[in-house]
């Protein structure tokens, strides 16, 4: 039971780590895809 609960807790920790990691990364699909050749005429 302890092993199972530990694994569940680690899954939640990984989820939060993923959330903050991807927020902190200097990478964004949307920004990358719109960064070049923007014409505003």
């Amino acid at each position: 039971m302890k092993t199972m609960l530990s694994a569940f807790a680690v899954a939640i920790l990984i989820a939060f780590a993923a959330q903050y990691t991807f927020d902190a990364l200097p990478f964004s699909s949307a920004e990358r895809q719109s960064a070049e050749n923007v014409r505003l005429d």
Partner: protein
Amino acid sequence: MIRALLLLFTLAFAVPAAAQDSDFVPAGTQTVEDIMARQRALADGDESVRAVRDRQGGPDEAVADGIGLTADGTMGQTNDWSDPGIWRGVRYDDLDMRSQIRGPAATTLIQTGGMEWLERRAGPLRVWGGGLLFFTLVALGIFFLLRGRIRIDGPRTGRTLVRFRVYERFAHWLLAGSFLALAVTGLLVLFGRIAIIPIFGHEVWGPVAIVTKWVHNNISWAFMLALVMVFVLWVLQNIPDRSDWQWLKRAGGIFGGGHVPAKKFNAGQKAIFWAVIILGASLSVSGLSLLFPFEMPLFASTFTHLNDWGIGGLFGGLPTDLAPQEEMQLSQLWHGIVAFVMIAIIFAHIYLGSIGMEGAYDAMGKGRVEEQWAREHHSIWADKVMAERDDPRRKQTGSPDANPTPAE
């Protein structure tokens, strides 16, 4: 005076509102049914429906088509182009147009395949996927009623054998816990709008949808990590061998009684292992494609290979020129289909690992199993572990498997 003003005020808004018919459709406007009918005709090889596209052009052509006329018979016209002509050009990518937004999806402004995706997602995916899960549960219920719980036949010895070590159970529960979270949230993504909103309303579905999306996106990393761990830990013990054929020929002893010799994992467990690895990997790849939109197109290249191998021909040739949106739509459909199959398989796995078989849960719950259970269900493995345990030379080394432990 005030009453008169109020009346005037009310009429000022009410009369124009009443004059508007919410169901008003300008003459010649295409409906979703029109578009879908044309898509079906094109899929059946009827090129005549392209005539509408080929007649794009100025106002005269649009009038000839009868498309785009407004209620009073005039057209929405821009310079020498009719609006319908422009939009047909946009739709069929016939215009020399430029977009201020760059990126793989920016220049596809109209993508009618999206309607097909929407219909498949709301129709067959929900119906067949939900049906698969429902009938799997019904089949397991019937099996339980007919066969009952698989009991330990022989007398319990009071001794246990180490079945799975802590790190193995951790990997299993990390995979199991993350998969259950993904399954529940994935089903909510697909069925939430039609299951939650009618009962609890939009106010409830809103926050549920936000949490669902967060959990599904972020727990996925735990699932992928656990999938790799499980693969590394158990792949060698799940390579098929001759004993599996004997096990399969007797269906594992489920029908007709008796126990079939098996190693640490029997053929049924190996089948589940490989199903989880292969389907889990496919779910991970299609999931990554959905997590990073337009960054990981999967299907055009896959379809090219399938066509080259002749497999695509079985489906009349698979399309290899896909819009970025179509790649995403196919990823979503594939993700859903594979997920449904895997959930159904996991239903059976959970059943056999819990209520379906006495003593089975201890393997993952405690890591140790009753010696008699091991002899009955994994006799080749049990004989080997007990021989090592009883080996006097091994006893001196103090191996953790050497000391018989009373069953809890």
